[in-house]
């Protein structure tokens, strides 16, 4: 296969001499060489789309009616047990903080995802930005030539930028590990050069007639940045064919496994936020079987990701968050499924100074009658997000005036020391 990098370098050299206004010089790439705390911080979100069952994963209740067929196994963290469906992650729990007491009011996929992704209850008149969008905006990365916020295998069509604007929407990659759509010109370099020259001629005519207004549109700037991205050597971060076959096997030869490997490469390159989606958790029917299938994909990918990040000395600067829009009911329905359950659910956080080998919160084994009570030691999504922002050096209490004139904080809660190593 012809090397994309060689092509791009060649094209850059040729176009660089043409004086085209759409071209910018390639900026130095230093982020990838730094390690430990001395590198830009990033977040990887593993999004369990559809509503992951806490009982089949992070919060098993074996031997109870609600627990179903799932057994609990010991893990590398003392006194922490998780589902037997996650043997790989059982060996990594010493790196993780397990929170079993998240809670929400939203039992609908769209609204639940909106709440968990933004930390704010959805409102009809104001779209909130996702956590990733806030981070990408607040932590600009001058050396980055590819987008700072990337979704791999996304399933949620809602734009991420909310009131921050479209420019903070995530860049979407539908088949991670494969060639990214629309990043390569459909014509050879020389012809692309001619096309860009033609575009320059037409663009100049439009700008000549309305110089200031055209400048304010930033349209030409967008084109320049897109061309720059097409030429960037950082695009190599989207490829995994130069990764050892054994490592690819270890992540799993699935979209999610490839996504996790690409996520590692992207954060190494300096991308601020990567979200990898694993769809298929909406198990209203045959929940246990469904989670066997899901965990076979999740377990190798997530456990290898954590090992890989640790081996590369990236776990101090990269936070990994595995989360879902809600949990699933303690009651098993007549179709052997579990339905939506925002009453309590779990997430796992690793890296970035979060506590290691610990569990926070607990849920009752009994199936509640009527309105579910709050779980023991409840922890809110806004609290988790404020803490993530704080660990990334962002003040979540900072207010921003939204387009409708309302001042809103990036996080509606304060950071929590109990989630951090320094606070334990």
């Amino acid at each position, binding site marked *: 296969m012809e090397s994309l990098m060689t092509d791009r370098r060649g094209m850059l050299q040729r176009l660089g001499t043409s004086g085209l206004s759409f071209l910018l010089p390639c900026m130095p790439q230093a982020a990838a060489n730094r390690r430990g705390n001395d590198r830009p911080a990033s977040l990887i979100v593993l999004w369990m789309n559809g509503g992951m069952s806490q009982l089949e994963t992070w919060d098993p209740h074996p031997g109870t009616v609600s627990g179903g067929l799932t057994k609990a196994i010991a893990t590398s963290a003392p006194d922490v047990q998780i589902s037997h469906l996650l043997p790989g992650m059982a060996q990594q729990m010493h790196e993780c903080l397990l929170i079993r007491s998240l809670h929400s009011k939203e039992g609908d996929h769209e609204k639940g995802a909106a709440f968990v992704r933004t930390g704010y209850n959805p409102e009809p008149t104001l779209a909130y930005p996702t956590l990733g969008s806030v981070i990408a905006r607040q932590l600009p990365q001058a050396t980055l030539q590819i987008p700072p916020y990337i979704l791999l295998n996304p399933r949620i069509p809602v734009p991420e930028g909310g009131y921050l604007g*479209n420019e903070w929407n995530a860049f979407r990659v539908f088949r991670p590990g494969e060639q990214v759509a629309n990043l390569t010109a459909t014509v050879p370099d020389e012809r692309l050069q001619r096309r860009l020259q033609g575009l320059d001629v037409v663009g100049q005519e439009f700008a000549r007639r309305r110089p200031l207004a055209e400048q304010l549109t930033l349209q030409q700037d967008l084109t320049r940045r897109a061309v720059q991205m097409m030429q960037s050597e950082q695009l190599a971060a989207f490829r995994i064919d130069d990764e050892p076959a054994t490592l690819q096997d270890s992540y799993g030869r699935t979209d999610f496994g490839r996504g996790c490997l690409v996520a590692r490469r992207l954060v190494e390159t300096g991308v601020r936020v990567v979200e990898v989606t694993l769809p298929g958790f909406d198990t209203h029917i045959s929940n246990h079987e469904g989670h066997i299938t899901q965990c076979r994909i999740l377990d190798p990918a997530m456990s290898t990701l954590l090992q890989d990040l640790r081996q590369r000395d990236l776990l101090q600067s990269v936070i990994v968050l595995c989360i879902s829009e809600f949990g699933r009911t303690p009651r098993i329905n007549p179709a052997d499924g579990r339905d939506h359950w925002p009453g309590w659910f779990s997430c796992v956080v690793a890296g970035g100074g979060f506590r290691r080998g610990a569990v926070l919160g607990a849920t009752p084994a009994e199936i509640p009658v009527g309105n579910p009570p709050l779980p023991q030691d409840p922890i809110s999504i806004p609290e988790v997000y404020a803490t993530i922002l704080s660990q990334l050096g962002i003040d979540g209490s900072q207010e921003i005036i939204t387009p409708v004139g309302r001042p809103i904080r990036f996080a509606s809660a304060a950071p929590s020391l109990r989630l951090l190593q320094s606070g334990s």
Partner: protein
Amino acid sequence: MRWLTWISLPVLGLLLSAVVQTAGSVETPLSAPPAVPASQRLDAAVERLNQYFQQRWQQAGVQPVAQADELTVFRRVSLALFGCVPALAEIKAFEQDLQPDRLDRWIVRMLQDERFGRYFADRLARSLTGVEQGPLFIFRRDRLRDWLAEQVLADASWARMTRDLIAAEGLWTDQPAANFITIARMENEEIDETKLAGRTVRAFLGQRIDCAQCHDHPFDPQWKQPHFEGLAAWYCQATVSLAGVTDFDRDKAEQPVVYRITEPGRDSESGRTVDPAVPFNAEWLPATGSLRSRLAAWVTHPKNRRFERAIANRIWGLMIGRPLQDPVDDLPHPEDSAAPDALDLLGSEFRNRGERLSVLIRLIALSQPFNLSSESSEQDVLLLKQQQQHWAVFPLVRLRPEQVIGSLFQAGRVRMVDQNSHPLIRFQKLTSENDFIQEYGDAGEDELNPQSGTITQSLLKMNGRFTAESLKVDLLSGPAEVLQLSPDDATVIENSFLMCLTRRPAAAEQQYFLEQLKNNRSQAVEDLFWALFNSPEFSWNH
């Protein structure tokens, strides 16, 4: 391989018929639309609106820019009513029509075109039900959209449509207005009255009071929490069953149906009861009728200025891309004593002429602000913003996603893609639109809010398959036809510019592309279309 033959034959047939149909329609020129009957002319109202703006410019000390040329205005109208640039065939016919009142006559014709019904229904549906998926089976966005298209094409009264939506009864399939109610059904199978109250006030009265669900409106003293609760109570009888949307009979029910508000975590019986109420002018409420029909009558009451101002503001936004008052659904309280503003002028004409959307559309399109150029030599940002604020220059507005793909699809063809196009082409357009918007990003419910562009969008336009398909020089494509039918290279360039940008090339552009056409002509034409598709001018209303 016999199966292949059986499959291929119908496909080949469709293709051939597409060719024949396309070729046949070359000979059918578009006739000039007839004169607008005297009773429908809007001259006096347009004059009043223009006088209002002239006075406003004088008071603000801003100088309006020159008039735009009529082709540019034609492009604006086509983008607003069809969601795409005009076809080359339409441009030529428009230019050949030398009778008076050309623009108004063409707008009247466009308002009867199926493209207008479909495109405008989409816009209205967004304001009525947002873009969420809605409850499975019982929410049929397609039915609602089809109904709205029928209504706008029939030039129905917006007040009547509003009453049909608020008071709808019946199945979501054969009474499509009922989908305004069914989208509010929650997982527990009850109707979310608060959602309907918020939507009603936003869509029909142009006010965001959703926050008053929990507390008094922080900025507008007119809206307090009890107002919101009282409005929500009008929907308490609505229910969705197998028979569709119905109202519980308040008098015959074993227990009276009341609107009860329960604090979170408390037992539903412990809540307080709220009676239906309106925040102002209760005398507009009819004494009898179902709760929803009484609310609908109050919302659309001839004296309820908020109703006409809200739709006038939305239509202005849909025509220009930016509403007169931003955001589109958060209008200030209309003061009785104040001199009529542009929304009042538009609204009163709308009321006087049967509350028809077509009146607002024509009035706006014929007004001076709509016909001003977007070319301003202003070098100072603040002064330019002032010009824009007072509509003394046509604003540059980023096209919405459906306008970009609509234009990309149309600009790749010489003839209109409309109800007379071959089913294959229409199907191709529909799927292209859906796929493109998925990749480009949907503007969402608040589509009139300013939207910034993204790298994803630029990459999609530069390297995506939609661009590649529209610029390809092959059997049925517009670029191929331009090459074949234009007598010389200068005309090739002129036609390409008209198809994509609805204007002729400037001298520098003509000179540059003439040079390019001296070599591989097919490639040069494709490259020309690529440059035009990717130009800022293509993606902005101007």
